[in-house]
C-alpha cells in the first residue's frame, strides 16, 4: 500500500510518496508541536495526497474521501483546509505548476551561464539547416535544458506529472483556468528562453506547441515508465523548436 510519509528536505518541508504501511505521519494526541507547524504539515500532506489520488483514480472518480485517506487526516481536517475536493486539487495544481516552472527557469538559466553546447547553425535537431548565430544557438541550448529539466521533474514525480498533464473537467472552471494559465506561462517561457526580449511573431503558436507537448507528455507518462519520459527530451526538443 502506498502511504505518504513526512520527510524533511531543505529549504522546505516536503512529503514523499513511499512504500510503507506506517499508519500516521504525525503522532496523535499531545505531541508538543506548534499548531501552525501541524497545520502546515497537514496542508502539505493533503496537497500531495490530492495529486496521488488523482493519479490513482483520475478526474472521473477522485474523491475527497480518498484524499483524506491517503493524507492520513480526518474529513474534518480536510474541510478545515479546503472548501471541497476541487479547491484542494486546484491548490495542488498551482503548487506543482509553480515547481515545474521554477525547475525549467533554473535549468535554462544554468545553461545560459555556460558555453552553449550547440551553437553556430542554430538547429538543435539539425533538420532545418537554417543558418543561425551563436545567440540563437545559446537560446536553443537553454530551451533544451529547460525541456530536459521539465521531463526529469515529471519523471521523478509521477503524481504531479499526472496532475499537470491531464485535462481537467471543464465544469471546474478554476482548474480549467489554472490549466490555461500554465499553458500560457510555459508558452511565454519558451519564447523568452529562446529569444530574451524577442517579439512573438505568432502569439498563439507557442500555446499550441505547449498544448501538443503536454498531450505527448501525458501519453508517455501514462505508460508508467519514468525513463521513457526522460528519453523524450531529444525528440521533444527537436519538434518544439522545428518551427520557432
Amino acid at each position: 500500500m502506498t502511504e505518504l510519509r513526512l520527510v524533511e528536505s531543505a529549504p522546505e518541508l516536503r512529503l514523499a510518496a513511499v512504500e510503507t504501511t506506517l499508519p500516521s505521519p504525525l503522532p496523535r494526541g499531545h505531541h508538543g508541536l506548534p499548531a501552525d507547524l501541524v497545520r502546515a504539515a497537514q496542508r502539505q500532506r493533503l496537497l500531495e495526497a490530492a495529486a496521488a489520488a488523482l493519479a490513482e483514480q483520475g478526474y472521473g472518480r477522485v474523491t475527497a474521501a480518498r484524499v483524506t485517506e491517503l493524507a492520513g487526516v480526518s474529513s474534518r481536517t480536510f474541510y478545515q483546509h479546503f472548501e471541497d475536493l476541487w479547491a484542494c486539487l486546484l491548490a495542488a495544481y498551482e503548487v506543482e505548476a509553480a515547481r515545474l516552472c521554477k525547475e525549467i527557469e533554473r535549468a535554462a538559466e544554468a545553461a545560459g551561464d555556460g558555453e552553449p553546447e550547440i551553437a553556430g547553425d542554430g538547429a538543435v535537431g539539425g533538420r532545418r539547416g537554417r543558418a543561425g548565430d551563436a545567440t540563437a544557438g545559446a537560446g536553443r541550448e537553454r530551451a533544451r535544458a529547460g525541456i530536459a529539466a521539465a521531463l526529469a521533474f515529471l519523471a521523478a514525480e509521477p503524481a504531479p506529472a499526472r496532475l499537470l498533464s491531464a485535462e481537467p473537467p471543464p465544469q471546474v472552471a478554476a482548474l480549467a483556468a489554472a490549466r490555461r494559465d500554465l499553458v500560457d506561462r510555459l508558452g511565454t517561457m519558451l519564447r523568452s528562453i529562446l529569444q530574451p526580449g524577442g517579439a512573438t511573431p505568432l502569439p498563439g503558436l507557442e500555446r499550441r506547441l505547449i498544448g501538443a507537448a503536454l498531450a505527448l507528455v501525458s501519453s508517455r507518462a501514462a505508460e508508467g515508465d519514468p525513463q521513457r519520459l526522460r528519453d523524450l527530451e531529444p525528440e521533444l526538443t527537436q519538434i518544439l523548436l522545428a518551427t520557432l
Partner: protein
Amino acid sequence: MPSDALSARQAIASQNGGPSDDEVREGAMEGALIAAGEVGYREASVRTILEHSGGHRAQFYRHFENKEDCFAQAYAAWVERLCVDLLEAAAGATAWEAGVRGALVELFRFVDERPAIARALFVEVQIAGEPALARHEAMVDRAAAALDAARVEIEPNLEPPEATGVFVVGGIEACVCEALSAGDPGRVWDALPELMHLTVGSYFGREAAEAAFEAAGALLERERAGAGGEGEER
C-alpha cells in the same frame, strides 16, 4: 432471459411503439455522449442517459455493464465514424498538406455542429475511465499514423522524430478541447492557421509552416467572406 423471449419482448415493445433493444442500445450510446457533453461525465448517470435515449434501465443493462462501459462503447463507435469521415476528407485531396487541411475543416465542422458529442469525445473521455482512455490512445495512434504519410515526402536523413505524429494529434486535440471547454466551439476555426503551422512545421520545418499558415488564413478569409471553398491544392 432466453433469446426468443427477448425477441418477443422486443417485438411487443415495437408493437407498442416503444423502442426496441437495438434502438435502445444505439440511443443510449448517443445519449451517454450527449449527457457527458452537456453535464460532464462525472454528473452523467444511467438516468440522464435514458432521459436522452428513451427505454428503461433493464434494457440498458442488457447491453452495458454500467455508465463507464456504455461511454466506452459509444466512444469507440462515434470516434470510428469520425475517423472515417476525416480520412475520407483527407483522401479527397491531391497532396498531404491539403489533405490535412481538409481533415481539419471536417473536424471543425463536426465540433461546430455537434458540440455536446464533440465535448464528450475530446474532453470528457479524459476522465471517463480506462476502457475509454484505451480506445482514445488507439485513436491517437491511428491519427498519428495517418499524419506520418508525410514521411514519404521527406528525405530519410531529415525525417522528424518518431513522436511527431502523436505530438501533432495532441496539439489538435488540445485546441479543440480549449474551444469546447470555453463553451465556444465556433472559435475552433480561428485556430486553423496556427494548427496548420504546427502540423506542417513539425514535419517540414519553419518555411513550409509559414506558407501553410498563410494558405490556411487565406482559406478562412474566403470561407468567411462566403466567396471561397476548399478547392485549391498546394
